[in-house]
């Protein structure tokens, strides 16, 4: 009886070992064929494109202009499409919804939950990651020999710099330069209108990303920068990063314009809360009906569309200057 059990155990162990090895040899296949694609056939135009530094200071060597690009963030997808790289993008996240065409690409998972197998199977020769990926995903991709650029701009200038970098890496330098030039012109047009404003003509602007508790954007954020450029004074200028602000502070500081970020899925809970909270009715913004809702995809992502956002913001903060 006991001998019988031992036999059974051995057989099961043997079968599971066989099954497991079969599986693992299966998964290694795409990786090895990936190397076969990338190394022996470099693009004839350049033996090496160059060495680049990304937004967190990593240096990345690019041997040939990438033809199969995967984006791990909606903002990266927008940047790549804006540079005319749409045809070369083979994988995006489930959150990548702009431009419309991005939705048709293969999905490699969400933003924080990346499907490594899917990435490897798509055989990318460039991955555009974000800083959320630097601890786990990026080292894993590097180990597989896939070049990764981490893109995490913190200001309009840095968005422009990243557009140039991605342009150089992919051989789209001309597109990048003309895009940045036209974007810079639009930014300058806005700041030219607001530059000479006297301090008392700059309204106190309160930016709300979430209402429970109230989250706002501090002076050192890209939103803080946009408010300044649009001729407003950020109510949370003394805060750093995205931070909470107590309701009593908001009432005490008395915002003249409130701008609320839309929530995903069209609920707009935060906007409805701000509009209806009885304790905020005494603020100038609510008295004068100057509470606006803005698209979180435009203001929450660091992409060329941030310039659209700046122009919209000018219309809300200074409708008379638009």
């Amino acid at each position: 009886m006991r001998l019988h059990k031992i036999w059974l155990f051995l057989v099961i162990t043997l079968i599971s070992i066989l099954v497991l090895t079969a599986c693992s040899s299966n998964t290694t296949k795409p990786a090895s064929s990936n190397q076969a694609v990338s190394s022996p056939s470099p693009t004839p135009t350049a033996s090496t494109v160059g060495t680049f530094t990304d937004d967190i200071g990593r240096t990345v060597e690019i041997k040939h202009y990438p033809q199969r690009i995967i984006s791990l963030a909606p903002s990266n997808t927008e940047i790549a499409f804006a540079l005319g790289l749409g045809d070369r993008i083979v994988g995006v996240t489930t959150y990548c919804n702009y431009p419309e065409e991005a939705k048709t690409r293969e999905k490699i998972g969400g933003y924080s939950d990346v499907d490594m197998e899917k990435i490897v199977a798509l055989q990318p020769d460039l991955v555009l990651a974000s800083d959320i990926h630097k601890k786990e995903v990026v080292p894993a991709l590097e180990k597989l020999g896939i070049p990764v650029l981490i893109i995490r701009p913190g200001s309009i200038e840095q968005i422009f710099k990243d557009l140039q970098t991605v342009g150089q890496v992919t051989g789209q330098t001309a597109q990048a330069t003309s895009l940045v030039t036209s974007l810079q012109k639009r930014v300058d047009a806005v700041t030219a209108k607001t530059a000479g404003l006297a301090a008392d003509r700059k309204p106190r602007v309160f930016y709300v990303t979430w209402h429970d508790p109230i989250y706002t954007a501090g002076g050192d954020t890209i939103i803080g920068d946009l408010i300044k450029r649009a001729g407003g004074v950020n109510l949370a200028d003394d805060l750093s990063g995205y931070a909470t602000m107590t309701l009593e502070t908001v009432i005490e500081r008395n915002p003249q314009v409130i701008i609320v970020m839309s929530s995903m899925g069209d609920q707009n809970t935060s906007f409805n809360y701000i509009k209806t909270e009885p304790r905020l009715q005494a603020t100038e913004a609510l008295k004068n009906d100057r509470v606006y809702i803005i698209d979180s995809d435009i203001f929450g992502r660091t992409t060329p569309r941030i310039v659209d956002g700046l122009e919209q913001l000018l219309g809300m903060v200074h409708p008379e200057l638009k």
Partner: protein
Amino acid sequence: MAIDHKILASRKSGELADYARKSRIRLYSICGMVIAGVFLAVLALTVGSVRIPLGTVWSVLVAHLPFAGSAAGDVSATTEMILLGIRLPRILMAGIVGAALGVAGATYQGLFRNPLADPYLIGVAQGAALGAVTGFIIPWTILGIYFIPLFSFVGAVGAVAIVYLIARVGKTLPMTTLILAGVAVGSFLISITSYLTLIAGDKTHGILTWMMGRFSLSNWDQLKMVTPYILAGIGAILLYARPLNVMQLDEEQAQQLGINVEQTKLVLLIAATLITAAAVCFVGTIGFVGIIVPHAVRLVWGPDHRSLLPLSAISGAILLILADTASRTLMAPGEIPVGVITAFLGAPFFLFLLRRRKRAVF
């Protein structure tokens, strides 16, 4: 023989005197703590992003007392709004929630005769969290900002109801089965909640803050909704202090001493669940208060439920008022979720008590 009688009689009168002394101490302690609580609440009204002098606070409070109807003189409308519209409901909410969690914790610990029991032991928090997360990610909304609290209340009560139905054996409710069923159902619910939180996209932040607990949006309407439940529940539990004492011996002995054990368990379970669900549905699952407050009270005043239950209510209220004051002032003009504060400041305080007394807690 005669001497024996004498000794017995004197011992009896000694016990009676001791009993009278103990109930006097209990009464004084409760009154003292209530006064301390009110005093702290008034002090808490003065601090925040703007400092409001005690005199101003006093004049505004007195002017709004129901019987004195006079205006508060030269106090600005903004100051009055901050005091009465924001700080006062927030402080009262912290107090009532703290009282609920303190009493519920003491009740569960007594009911299960287990020092590790807290109000969340049999699924309240896990059910409330799943309800809240569901409310967060459902793309439509009714009832505006009462949508999530409603879901969380239903989730909390529903989870405990399921645990109860699973654990019931015939007409009895074995406490060990109840705990095990609670832990298993809780884990099951957590697995769903965790996954929903992960895929919630830009809602994740709101969900995490809810789970840590916060009083940032507390207002009079919320207070009006939860206070009746919590006061009624605490009242019901206080009536069962004596049976709860007897049940500490053994359920069988308690039964023989004339306690209706099953009825007592059911009433206490329902009341503790209701007050916990009402406490967490608006402010989130604040941890630590429910488990530590009863232990701290036991360390200071002893294990008698007639003092343990009311003093846990008052101490819970005081602890959460203090924690909320810290949460809105330490990082002003921002705030820290109150659940972080309760554990961060409360745990060292409890360890201090534990070291000083150096005796068995439970």
